[in-house]
């Protein structure tokens, strides 16, 4: 299983803060994005946004990053703290 978490505007647009997936057949973050985008038109539109950032196990990564069972993968908009 993999855990997927969403933050800020993304969490609100998806109306979802967290979900779990089997993760089978998913090799990279890009694969996961494709899988999530297939859920509905809304999800498709949101995951087509190139500004979206991703993290695996609390480290910022790009879409080519490989993923494995037990990972926590996060998607969120560009950060605006400080």
């Amino acid at each position: 299983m993999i855990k997927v978490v969403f933050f800020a505007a993304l969490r609100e647009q998806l109306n979802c803060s967290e979900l779990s997936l089997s993760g089978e057949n998913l090799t990279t973050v890009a694969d996961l994005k494709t899988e999530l985008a297939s859920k509905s038109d809304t999800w498709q539109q949101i995951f087509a946004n190139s500004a979206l950032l991703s993290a695996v196990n609390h480290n910022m990564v790009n879409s080519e990053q490989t993923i494995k069972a037990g990972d926590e993968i996060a998607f969120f908009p560009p950060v605006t703290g400080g």
Partner: protein
Amino acid sequence: MIENSTPEISIQTADFSLADEVTLLEQDNAIDGAVVTFTGRVRNKNEGKNVTSLTLEHYPGMTEKSLAKIICTAKERWRLGRVKVIHRVGELFIGDQIVFVGVTSKHRQDAFAANEFIMDYLKVQAPFWKKESTEQGNNWLDAKVSDENKAAKW
């Protein structure tokens, strides 16, 4: 909202005291002649709109890891004594303190540079998001290209 802290990093809903933080940086610290602090506060206007409050969200766990990395990089680049980063989360109002960065070093150049470096990287790497409440409604703030450019200059 999870509250978490290490000696150098604190993510908290509570306010902080600038005077207390300066004391912690200075006490029993005879080797550092320079103390540079930065405090960020909630402004009353943003992009022409009257702001009533800000709500800060973060990614517990990643936030601390990301700030620890930034501090570690700063310590590699400059000769630093003590470092403290505090970031508040939750709902904040006009004039409230949001963020504190305090750095000590033997001489001022290292402390000035490291403080600015930490703030610039916090702005573009630490997973915090601001939602603004204005007279026109609520909206998530967009990241600024100028912040990306500023961090890239280091």
